[in-house]
């Protein structure tokens, strides 16, 4: 066997988790009709807050909570700008990324290389030692399972509950939702905060679990992949999971093919997540009715109560 499929699966799940967390949060935000391009900024805030708190408190769980809080705090800024002050969402989102990168660098000065607590692994050693299934299913840190449960929870809430229905109504037609008496702005702020917390948690996973270090600019574009992933998944939670594993799988596989000295066009494989996203965009936009079914109709539109 050129590439060991078991270690590939383990690596793929780890690689995919930060992006998966950020993307599932952004999916909820976009389902509420808000386009927040600041995912990268919220992720890096989560990474730095998570690292700093985990280091000082000696508790990875507190670090994750701080990561969520950091991401949500930055998201709150976006919510105030776009929902209360009616600022343009695209510009605000881009500004949020730049601001988040700078603020995180400032907070993180001097923290690089400091020790971290070990992260809780929910399954006992005995289960992890089972051949094949052990490493793939039971070897991960707690956040990996949280991310999977989150995908399931978002799917249930969006498709099976009243809250999900209201959220989607706000995203599809905010005037109608408003006319029915739903608080469009409040619902959107809640969605934005949820998205920020998820992105922050993804960032904290990166710094506390995957790299186990704080390094300036360490998200290195993961937030943008998360944004692409939401479009790739055509706003469906399970497809976000599939896409995250696909993107993560390509990244993990190309490194392993190189290590096994199989001649692969690395640059092409590296670019493939973006290429696939573009292809998916072309496909869904070629069919007007299907595109209309998937993209939230109010995505990026500003809501005025006057209608």
């Amino acid at each position, binding site marked *: 066997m050129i590439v060991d499929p078991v270690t590939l699966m383990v690596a793929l799940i780890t690689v995919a988790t930060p992006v998966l967390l950020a993307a599932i949060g952004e999916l909820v935000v976009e389902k509420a009709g808000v386009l927040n391009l600041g995912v990268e900024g919220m992720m890096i805030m989560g990474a730095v807050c998570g690292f700093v708190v985990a280091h000082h408190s000696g508790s990875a769980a507190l670090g994750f909570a701080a990561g969520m809080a950091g991401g949500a705090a930055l998201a709150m800024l976006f919510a105030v700008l776009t929902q209360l002050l009616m600022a343009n969402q695209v510009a605000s989102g881009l500004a949020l990324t730049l601001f988040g990168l700078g603020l995180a660098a400032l907070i993180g000065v001097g923290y690089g290389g400091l020790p971290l607590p070990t992260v809780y692994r929910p399954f006992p050693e005995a289960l992890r030692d089972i051949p094949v299934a052990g490493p793939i299913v039971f070897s991960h840190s707690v956040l990996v399972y949280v991310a999977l449960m989150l995908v399931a929870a978002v799917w249930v809430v969006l498709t099976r509950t009243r809250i999900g229905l209201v959220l989607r109504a706000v995203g599809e037609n905010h005037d109608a939702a408003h006319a029915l008496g739903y608080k469009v702005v409040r619902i959107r702020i809640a969605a934005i905060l949820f998205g920020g917390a998820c992105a922050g948690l993804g960032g904290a996973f*990166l710094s506390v679990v995957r*790299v186990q*270090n704080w390094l300036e600019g360490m998200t290195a574009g993961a937030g943008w992949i998360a944004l692409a992933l939401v479009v790739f998944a055509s706003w469906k939670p399970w497809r976000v999971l599939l896409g995250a594993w696909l993107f993560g799988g390509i990244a993990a596989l190309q490194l392993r093919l190189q290590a096994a000295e199989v001649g692969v066009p690395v640059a092409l494989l590296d670019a493939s997540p973006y290429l696939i996203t573009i292809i998916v965009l072309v496909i869904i936009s070629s069919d007007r009715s299907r595109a209309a079914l998937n993209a939230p109709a109010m995505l990026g539109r500003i809501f005025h109560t006057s209608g």
Partner: protein
Amino acid sequence: MKLLPKFLTSAALAVGLALPALAQDPFKVGFIYVGAVSDMGWTFTHDVGRLAVEEHFGDAVETVFLENVPEGADAERAISQMILGGADMIFTTSFGYGEATNAVAGQFPDVYFEHATGYMRDHPNVSNYSARFYEGRAVLGHIAGQMTESNIVGYIASYPIPEVIRGINSAFLHARAVNPDVEFRVVWAYTWFDPAIEADAAQALVDAGADVIMQHTDSTAPQTVARDAGIISFGQASDMIQFAPRPRVASIIDNWAPYYIRRVGEAMEGTWEQADTWEGMPTGKVLIGELSDAIPAEVRASAQAMIDALKAGTYHPFTGPINRQDGSVWLAEGEVADDGTLLGMNFYVEGITGEVPN
């Protein structure tokens, strides 16, 4: 049109007023960094050099720096902006800044430019400087070859440029010299600094059976992976001593400070001349960090002997007989590689099983 003469007058006035003050103005030196100062690797060591310049010259010199400047067109803007902000001398500290540095140098003939690890000098005010990192790689290869038990050494490479290929060749030759069964597995990350990808690459190499990791990327992420996997690694660019005695058993340290102080001094005195400086261990531009206790005593002793020979300049890491990967003769018995071939090195030596990507 009427405005123009008026503008010129006021500009002349401004220059006239500024002239007396100019004499006391500190000499301003700008640094363009590809990563963050906090990377604890490549950029960190350049910033150590910058701080040494500040300390050496005191109030006579002022330094500024810009982090995370992308290689390419963005760099041109960043450099120009720094000069418009008053910089008299610019150090661009990554290979990919070559074109940008030369483009800006043409527009500002009075500013001194120093481009690290590059080769382009289109204008008389551009110099190149680099270090013979391959000398240090020889020592690391010597240690790696003897410490590996799986006989697989994993190598995280950045971009397929001569500097990186040279390092792989040097490390491999010296690992093979002490261990005929050793193999190198090279993974190209196509980035200088991306902790997540560097960590993933290290994990991929561990999964492929490597029990020694060498890196030519800038972050400490591979060190963490090596620690968790219980294997050994080497510090890159900076000492990375926080990972000693294991996984980091030794390191290559870039020591830019003496060069920066010398060149800034020359520029201030007006004795600066265009140069292509390529120094290594003899002048202390490349240092080997402390050999940790995790290295067996006899290996430590032989590594120290190699360090001493390299420092004394009595040993060249590329001394024949060395064949190219395809089996053709590169260096005959006793022949030493010339700098021209080393600077343009785009081939692996015999014994490396992978291929240099295009």
